[in-house]
């Protein structure tokens, strides 16, 4: 069976939330990172296994332009991470996919990089989509400077001062990535090769996250480096706790959205693992004075984290303020009681009294409390994505599957133009996904196949008009346009959570929910929506530094907050 049925063996069914709640798109758009998010898994691993990460070659001028090669030794393999940094005219700096030049470009590749290989990479990596790399490369990425922040930090360090944390809190990073490519793009290693040959990166998006981790390290290194070149007599290095507070920025747009729709088995699996972790805690997480204290501390930290998020987006500010307020009232609620029987009591209270955003914040906090109950799940996040037609199934059975598992899709009235008024397409500009208005703009005949709810409805209507006793093989022979959807329905009907429940063709669709859902699984926080179509966010803020490897295995860096300046002075 497709999916991940472990919860059944564990007797967790009573604690698992239903698909109607969990797979609602607006709910998915409220998810927070949690301990099994990919960044967290990655950092745990590299701390636990003590990866040896060295800047083996630094060839930079006084402005920090040139190249740097990191060498990475893990217990099982050797990799190189090659960075090309250059001057970029601020007038052409852009976070858009359609940009053609960047402050820095990078690749993660297997083995050691000799001169020939370096020249090959130098000729291709800076070109990004217009270059070609090879199957020894695992990730290709790029990043742009946050000019104002970078110059501010370098200026302070050159003067012998640490950056002001209030200033840092407003942006939270020195560089931001604008694309991170893996899985065989532009000639790189296929995911199947990564899984079989590079076991260090055989978890979803692990190599991509590692690339972002090293971009962050480079941004911190470069700030120190340029400050020292600028003012050798007075410059100081950034303090480690300030460095930890600096993340790596990210700008994510519509390009990420189709992935969630096109990989329903994988997304079901990610959700199912997360819900299983939560169910385990509701069932087995002992409520003691100690765990109540931990919960209280973490909830207070989460509230401070929300308060420190700086965004110009009015709606996001309201959401953050409301979540903070509701979380504080949850704390008051349970403190006023004479203890809690179990955590399910608290989540039930939140479900009855709080907005989904707060409910998910609460769940994210609970998920931090019992690592021993959930961390074994981190190897369950991969899934063999196969959507096979079961040709023997009778049409009547497929019809029943649709009625049982896609009732949410059948409830949409597609005779209402609003329900079909958006279409998704790939633009000729770097194949960038875009949204169009179906009844006003050209191009709908070339729409990307993402309207799952509508396709289900079309298949259902044709099935109802077909001989119910016939095999589905005969149906798709007659209606080949439905074959993809039918095999998808047959596959997803066997999973617990199934599809994301949304009509992405609706006039009012908010793709930003899709982006936040995926980013939360990456481990991203501090969402700063720039519109309903793209979001800035921060990765690895609060995470350990390379210099922490071998000194700590601490995993407590969720909900990053400004480091205490008094502690730092001490």
């Amino acid at each position: 069976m497709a999916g991940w049925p472990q919860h059944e063996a564990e007797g967790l069914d009573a604690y698992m939330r239903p698909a109607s709640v969990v797979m609602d798109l607006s709910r998915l758009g409220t998810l927070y990172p949690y301990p099994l998010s990919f960044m967290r898994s990655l950092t745990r691993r590299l701390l636990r296994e003590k990866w040896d990460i060295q800047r083996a070659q630094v060839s930079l001028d006084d402005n920090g332009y040139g190249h740097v090669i990191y060498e990475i030794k893990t217990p099982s393999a050797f990799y190189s991470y090659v960075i090309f940094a250059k001057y970029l005219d601020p007038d052409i700096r852009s976070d858009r996919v359609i940009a053609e030049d960047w402050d820095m470009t990078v690749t993660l590749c297997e083995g050691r990089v000799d001169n020939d290989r370096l020249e090959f990479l130098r000729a291709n990596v800076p070109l990004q989509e217009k270059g070609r790399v090879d199957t020894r490369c695992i990730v290709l990425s790029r990043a742009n400077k946050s000019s104002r922040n970078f110059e501010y930090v370098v200026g302070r360090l050159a003067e012998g001062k640490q950056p002001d944390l209030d200033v840092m809190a407003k942006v939270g990073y020195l560089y931001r990535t604008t694309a991170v490519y893996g899985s065989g793009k532009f000639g790189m290693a296929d995911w199947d090769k990564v899984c079989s040959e590079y076991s260090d990166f055989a978890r979803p998006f692990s190599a991509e996250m590692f690339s972002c981790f090293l971009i962050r390290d480079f941004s911190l290194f470069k700030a120190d480096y340029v400050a020292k070149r600028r003012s050798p007599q007075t410059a100081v290095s950034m303090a480690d706790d300030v460095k930890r507070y600096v993340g790596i920025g990210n700008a994510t747009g519509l390009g990420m959205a189709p992935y969630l729709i096109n990989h329903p088995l994988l997304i079901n699996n990610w959700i199912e693992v997360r819900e299983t972790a939560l169910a385990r805690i509701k069932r087995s997480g002992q409520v003691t004075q100690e765990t109540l204290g931990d919960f209280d501390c973490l909830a207070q930290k989460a509230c401070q984290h929300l308060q420190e998020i700086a965004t110009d987006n009015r709606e996001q500010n309201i959401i953050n303020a409301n979540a903070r307020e509701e979380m504080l009232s949850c704390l008051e609620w349970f403190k006023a009681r004479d203890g809690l029987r179990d955590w399910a009591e608290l989540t039930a209270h939140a479900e009855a009294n709080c907005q989904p955003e707060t409910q998910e914040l609460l769940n994210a906090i609970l998920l931090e409390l019992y690592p021993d109950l959930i961390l074994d799940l981190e190897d369950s996040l991969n899934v063999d994505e196969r959507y096979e037609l079961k040709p023997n199934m009778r049409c009547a059975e497929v019809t029943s599957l649709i009625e049982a598992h896609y009732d949410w899709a059948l409830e949409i009235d597609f005779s209402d133009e609003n329900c079909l008024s958006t279409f998704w397409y790939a633009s000729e500009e770097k194949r960038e996904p875009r949204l169009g208005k179906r009844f006003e703009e050209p191009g709908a005949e070339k729409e990307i196949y993402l309207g799952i709810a509508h396709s289900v409805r079309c298949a259902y209507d044709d099935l109802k008009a077909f001989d119910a006793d016939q095999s589905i093989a005969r149906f798709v022979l007659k209606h080949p346009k439905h074959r993809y959807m039918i095999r998808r329905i047959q596959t997803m009907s066997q999973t617990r959570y199934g599809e994301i429940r949304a009509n992405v063709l609706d006039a009012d669709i908010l793709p930003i929910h899709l982006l936040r859902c995926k980013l939360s699984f990456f481990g991203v926080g501090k969402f700063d929506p720039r519109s309903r179509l793209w979001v800035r966010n921060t990765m690895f803020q609060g995470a350990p530094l390379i210099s922490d490897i071998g000194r700590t295995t601490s995993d407590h860096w969720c909900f990053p907050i400004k480091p205490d300046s008094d502690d730092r002075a001490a």
Partner: protein
Amino acid sequence: MTAPLKLSHNELAALLKSVFQACFAHGQDWAAMAQSVVWLESHGFDGLAMLMESFDEDLCLQAVECDVTETDTGHIVDLNGGSLILAAHMIADLALENSESDRPARLIVQNARQPKALIAALPLCASQGFDAFVTADGRGVYAKSAERSYTTYHSAETELCLTCGAGLNAPQSDIDRTAKAIRCQARQNLMDGLFVNHKCIEKLQKIADRFLVEATEASRKGAGE
């Protein structure tokens, strides 16, 4: 002469999905077609060459319409001159529909272009737990489900035929390419990428580009600008 490009499987599959959508919009199972071509190519069965032969001079593809007739010994599938590279998945569907634990399905395929593409039905049968043979013109390919292995051999059969069933015996006649050789080739292609000539890629890219929408100021707003 320009050296061939090396493409990853994922890259080729993505390109082919765009090609098939450009040709058929969503009127066919474009993802299954792409999967067939990539599988054939990665296992040394010339999927791309067969696909290129399937295009007409305007670089268009014709959707395949199959007629199925039941006979005493199985089924006859008439492709009416269509290309099997576009229909191998549908033939696999019919084979699987008619395979029972004690009785294999036997489908004779007629009036098909690119007959060798029927081999792409084998992994679909194998992944659902059935062994299968494809034979034509004195050659055959055998798929053993349990091992997901493929062997080519010399066969006495002359008709283009797909046989699919549980526990079918391996061919006894002369082995041409062993399962190990085919597996090694597929693995090598995964490790190094697939060699594809520039002209082929340029042509496919040109077709795929038909599926792109012109960029305008209005469209840029649809990306968040």
